[in-house]
């Protein structure tokens, strides 16, 4: 009896974050006045759109490197792929594949850099990867604003060699001749993956589209992660995640493995960003990647993950709950207080707040555990 009570309590505590968000949604959905058909469609679309990005966070968590704020590096790589493919007018699935092929090596290099930087900042990986995201963003902007364009204005002195990456489509390039426009229409790529194999299901009076092809890809990736955990490399990452010193003394190449974890995560994020943007259909050259990191991390945490433990279930629960709140809160705010703006700020608050709370809880828990293990050593008085 007591055991049962204890178990329930434990379940409630360990899943408190998702439970709170389910309660919030239960309260806000009727207020917003959205139909269930609409919400189901929205959630299915958003799950397809975001899951891959969020999944890319799992491997670094497994390796004990915390939330990979550096995933925006991958997102940037993906965007460069998309810009080039759009310029070359490769459309449809081939376009997406080509964009992925272009972005993968860029993401791999960025991930390698990121991994090396993080190895120099052990114990504060998160803040470092976060700042690294900003730093690489500066370089990304430099590349996209100055190194891509039509005119060969940037020549290496004395050689006449043009180092500018040629992009000629006037719809992409700023009127001054170089630099990419702020908003890019990914016409040829829009829904290329989603529509490859779509399935329509009647839901009440509405018809719901399910982008089966995208889901198939996500499912394949989930299987990959499950499989990856069972490989030697996955086992090594788990070992490093628990105790770097022990892993090191058993002969596991700690630093190298950490770099691999970040490289995989960055490459997957690049791929995820491509899936994300093909669904949206337009790309905000200078901002799209910015929010990717924060929204993905917030979603994962809302799904019940922590800085040191995350599962595939956390990803899907989190994406659903986060986006439910995202869709519902402006309307709920409007109905409640008469201001849609309030709901919008509320969701900004939730995205930041959930990350803050998760980080505090994690740090606090670790502090408590250290205390408890110390108490375990205490002799009987």
């Amino acid at each position: 009896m007591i055991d049962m009570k204890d178990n329930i309590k434990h379940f409630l505590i360990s899943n408190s974050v998702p439970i709170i968000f389910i309660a919030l949604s239960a309260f806000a959905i009727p207020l917003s006045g959205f139909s269930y058909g609409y919400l189901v469609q929205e959630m299915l679309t958003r799950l397809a759109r975001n899951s891959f990005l969020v999944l890319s966070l799992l491997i670094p968590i497994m390796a004990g490197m915390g939330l990979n704020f550096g995933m925006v590096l991958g997102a940037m790589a993906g965007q460069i792929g998309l810009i080039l493919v759009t310029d070359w007018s490769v459309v449809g699935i081939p376009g997406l594949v080509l964009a992925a092929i272009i972005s993968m090596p860029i993401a791999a290099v960025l991930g390698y850099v990121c991994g090396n930087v993080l190895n120099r900042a052990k114990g504060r990986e998160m803040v470092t990867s976060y700042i690294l995201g900003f730093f690489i963003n500066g370089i990304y902007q430099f590349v996209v604003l100055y190194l891509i364009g039509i005119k060969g204005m940037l020549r290496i002195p004395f050689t006449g060699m043009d180092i500018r990456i040629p992009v000629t489509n006037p719809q992409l390039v700023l009127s001054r001749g170089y630099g990419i426009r702020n908003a890019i229409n990914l016409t040829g790529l829009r829904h290329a993956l989603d529509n490859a194999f779509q399935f329509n299901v009647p839901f009440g009076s509405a018809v719901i589209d399910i982008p089966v092809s995208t889901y198939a890809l996500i499912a394949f990736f989930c299987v990959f992660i499950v499989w990856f955990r069972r490989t030697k490399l996955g086992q090594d990452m788990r070992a490093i995640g628990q105790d770097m010193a022990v892993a090191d003394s058993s002969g596991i190449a700690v630093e190298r493995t950490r770099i691999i974890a970040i490289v995989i995560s960055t490459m997957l994020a690049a791929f995820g960003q491509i899936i994300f943007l093909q669904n949206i259909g337009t790309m905000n050259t200078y901002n799209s990647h910015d929010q990717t990191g924060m929204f993905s991390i917030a979603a994962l945490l809302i799904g019940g993950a922590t800085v040191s433990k995350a599962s595939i279930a956390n990803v899907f629960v989190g994406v659903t709950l986060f986006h439910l709140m995202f869709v519902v809160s402006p309307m709920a705010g409007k109905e409640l207080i008469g201001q849609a703006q309030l709901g919008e700020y509320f969701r900004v608050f939730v995205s930041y707040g959930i990350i803050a709370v998760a980080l505090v809880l994690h740090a606090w828990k670790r502090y408590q555990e250290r205390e408890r293990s110390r108490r375990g050593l205490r002799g009987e008085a």
Partner: protein
Amino acid sequence: MVAKLKKFIENAGWPRIIIGLFLVSLYIAAPMVNVKVLTSLSDTLVRVGMNGVLVLAMVPMVQSGCGLNFGLPLGIIAGLLGATTSIQFQARGLAGFGFAMLVAVPIAVALGFIYAQILNRVKGEEMMIATYVGFSSVAVMCMAWLLLPFNSPVMIWGYGGSGLRTTISTENYWRHVLSDFLAFGSDTSGTFYVPTGMFIFFFLMLFLVWGFFRTKTGTAITAVGSNPEFARASGIDVNRMRTISVILSTVLGALGILVYEQSFGFIQLYMGPLYMAFPAVAAILLGGASVNKATMVNVVVGTFLFQGILTMTPSVINSLLQSDMSEVIRIIVSNGMILYALTRKTQVKR
């Protein structure tokens, strides 16, 4: 000689030297591209005065071992509340500015106290948490700005809307009350202009913080930052010292944003304060501070270097390359500097 140079480079660190040389070359290049050095210098001075106190707000927390104060928005919020309250009550001139400070400081103390309680429970991971505590508080305030019962027509949306505007002019209240105090020249005439009053205030703050760290309590805070175990063994209440330093940083943040606003002429609400910590963090690191040691010299040098680059790059680089690269350079320099400080091998010992 070579050894001396090597030691100097080692102490200063490559990034600082490169950025310092970069700034010098900008000043040298300025006349060649028809940028007036004097105007640029005057612009730099104004921005140093504007941002100085915000950079100074980093010092107490760095010294107590709480790391770089990425939670600066918390102090800024207190300052914004002071500013909006003073305008609501139609407080004008130097007295109005004083009133804004008077309102802001107790709020900053309260917020700083709460903030310190959080940071004391998450030792070792202060920086990331500070960032997101700052962000969340900005988001909370976004909602608050919509809901708080301000009704001064200067501040609320003109027609039908409720809540405060995103930017509020301080034009008829206390714009430039510090800057123009004993100022040389005038900022509108395009001549050489020195915002003397703002510098007096900045140096007063520098002096107070410097003095504070020469008192018994200030010494204890420094020791806590240097080695908390040592401090504890000497009978110091480590959490209390950290709390004092966080409150101090938050109060300085509140005063800093007020100085900034009186010079800038506008109060920026809503998402305005979101990223304000980053330039301040970058500036103090550029000035030679590390994650756990900072001095007044770091503040002054860092603010000057950082703001110098911000003012010089748009004018010089843009006329040199005919394109606006300043934003990109700002992003790379400031974040590169923070990254450098975070990855240096001399880590905080715990």
